[in-house]
């Protein structure tokens, strides 16, 4: 379908559903049904089976019409949807994708555990079969939006007697089920972006299993790959960057300038520009259908630059760098790097090298998958999960 055909299709849809008079949720549902939600999804599942690079045109043509609030559905869109598409049954796809995309049902991710961070495959949350149901017990952590979510993507251990990667099964967790308890987790910034989720005797119907029993690690790879693509791709999108903002402060406040700070700012500015160009080149590669290994590196670059720049900014501001905007304990839905103060940026940026894969794990990945360096001796291979040291 070429651009003209897409334009015609959108025009026809808008003719039938006037955004000014249609109920916003009805409008979104209709957009999904018309295949104009994510056009690269298959027909019947909100898409038209088009290449991914057709999506921007559709979004542009529908700008100003009711919106599905990308922030709220980010995890559903970026992680749950591709996994359901790849591994879900027909029923699961029909049941979950539409309300996921319209935002009627929010999703969260139940992967990390206190004892299983970088080594996610060592996870200890148990799911035990009981007839047509599974009974889940365990604790998850770093779950954003858990308190707002209808569903969660969950990995749990169904067989402790085989090596760790082989005894995991992937589920869709009903966040309204009895035994699901969500507690906000306060961070060093003072607020709680994330939650701990305690699962106690939670019963999930076998319909909510995604993929085969014991195949959960492979299913989770789809989720994690999409998470990294989402983080990498969403990087230096806006025109305003952290270093750009610091440069504005520098321009406006000559009294803050010293030669030490000046030399460091010039270095930061170069690094920021190199990162921007790296991202731009990566996007060109993606558009040309050659996704280079550079993607694995963007998150590393981003974390390093953010941390250096925000540390620099606190020092630059001196007196003001000693202040903080707000320590009150409250939930927050996201990261407002540019809207808050320097102290917040400094503290929050520390998370950039931990969340979504630590920088240490990402360096391992680059070294092994991109450079082809040999892996370290593995002591947990072929050992049943239950015999591993923890």
């Amino acid at each position: 379908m070429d651009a003209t055909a897409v334009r015609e299709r959108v025009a026809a849809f808008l003719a039938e559903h006037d955004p000014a008079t249609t109920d916003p949720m009805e409008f979104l549902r209709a957009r999904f049904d018309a295949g104009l939600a994510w056009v690269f999804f298959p027909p019947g599942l909100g898409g038209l089976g088009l290449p991914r690079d057709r999506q921007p045109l559709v979004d542009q043509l529908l700008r100003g019409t009711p919106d599905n609030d990308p922030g709220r559905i980010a995890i559903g869109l970026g992680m749950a949807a591709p996994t359901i598409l790849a591994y879900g049954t027909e029923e699961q796809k029909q049941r979950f994708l539409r309300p996921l995309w319209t935002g009627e049902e929010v999703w969260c991710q139940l992967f990390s555990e206190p004892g299983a961070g970088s080594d996610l495959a060592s996870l200890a949350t148990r799911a035990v079969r009981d007839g047509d149901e599974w009974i889940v017990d365990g604790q998850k952590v770093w779950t954003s939006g858990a308190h707002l979510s209808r569903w969660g993507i969950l990995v749990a251990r169904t067989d402790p007697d085989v090596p760790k990667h082989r005894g995991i099964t992937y589920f869709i967790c009903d966040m309204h089920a009895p035994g699901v308890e969500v507690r906000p987790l306060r961070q060093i910034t003072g607020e709680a972006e994330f939650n701990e989720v305690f699962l106690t005797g939670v019963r999930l119907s076998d319909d909510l299993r995604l993929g085969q029993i014991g195949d959960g690690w492979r299913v989770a790879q789809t989720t994690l790959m999409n998470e990294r693509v989402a983080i990498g791709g969403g990087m230096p999108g806006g025109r305003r960057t952290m270093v750009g903002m610091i440069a504005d402060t520098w321009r406006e406040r000559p009294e803050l300038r010293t030669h030490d700070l000046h030399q460091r700012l010039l270095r930061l500015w170069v690094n920021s520009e190199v990162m921007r160009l790296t991202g731009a080149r990566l996007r060109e590669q993606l558009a040309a259908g050659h996704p280079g290994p550079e993607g694995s590196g963007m998150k590393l670059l981003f974390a390093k630059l953010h941390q250096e720049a925000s540390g620099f900014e606190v020092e630059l501001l001196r007196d003001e760098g000693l202040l903080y905007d707000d320590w009150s304990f409250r939930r927050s839905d996201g990261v407002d790097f540019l809207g808050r103060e320097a102290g917040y940026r400094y503290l929050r940026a520390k998370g950039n090298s931990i969340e979504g894969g630590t920088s240490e794990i990402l360096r391992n990945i680059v070294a092994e998958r991109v450079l082809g360096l040999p892996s370290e001796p593995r002591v947990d291979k072929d050992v049943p999960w239950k015999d591993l040291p923890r």
Partner: protein
Amino acid sequence: MSLLYSEIEDQLRAAVRDLLADKTSPGAADDGGLWKALARDIGVAGLLIPEELGGAGASAREAAVVLEELGRTVAPVPFLTSAVLATRALLAADAAEVGDLLERLAVGESTAALAVPFASSPYRPAGADVRVKESVISGRIAAVAGADVADVLLVPVEAGLAVVAADDPGVTVTPVTSLDTTRVVATVDLASADARIVATEPGALRDSLAFGAGLLASEQLGIAEWCLDSTVGYLRERTQFARPVGSFQALKHRLADLWLEIVGARAACRNAADQLASGWSQSARVAVAVAQAHCGAVAVHAAEECVQLHGGIGMTWEHPAHLYLKRAKADEIALGTPGDHRDALADLADLPAPA
């Protein structure tokens, strides 16, 4: 001169460490009892005050050891602000005029604060924006450390120091939401407050700030040591991939490098304290600048590694790592940034800037 710790210093450290272990833990507020115990029972409040005024007549070397321990616990006590900075400023004034106050400080009856922005660089102290007319003072000073718990404020004025009672009706001290929650800064507003002006030696403000900066390095050393120790301890226990995380070579090498930075910091701190104990000289100035140029960044580096290598748990409010990160970052700015101290070496070490 020695860069080692003396036996007396080791004993003082043990006493302070025991007391801190007994009475507080990182992040705990001080209901007054902690500072009282430190100030009076161990006598740290009067450490730098001459014996004839009721103090211990000790030197910067002993004060440095106390600061190492206070850094290790990020204890919320006004030792640096009252017993080091304010005391040093008073010691530059005529003893006849400030002897009473020093005697009260020595026994912990009174607590003072030098009313300057905590970020003041010793190399270019900002003139406080205050007006003095006869014995009445007005003005505002932002981001003052230790003012919230002081009953006496020492405001630098042209003639020397204005001694102002914190409970004077013309004084308002407003604590500000601070990055470092264990050492809050405050805005000091003076609206026609009564002031007693005492003369000080010329350059006393700069010297007091430099003296404080030189000792702050020891607090930074203590912070860095705690961060390294707690990280090593955690990585020995924490298991991932069926191995202690501390057995991963990349982390081992980073911690080895951090340890080396800290070894250097210890030498630089001992040198600064020793030089300051021997009086105010060109080599003391160099020692202070070197210690601050090195230690400020070491503490921040140690705290940042501590948060990172604790993984997710280090990002939580519940774990104490963040208290050290915030203290380390605030300390980096306090009393001159590392860059300010390096810049000072352009003159002090004859490494001139480009024309």
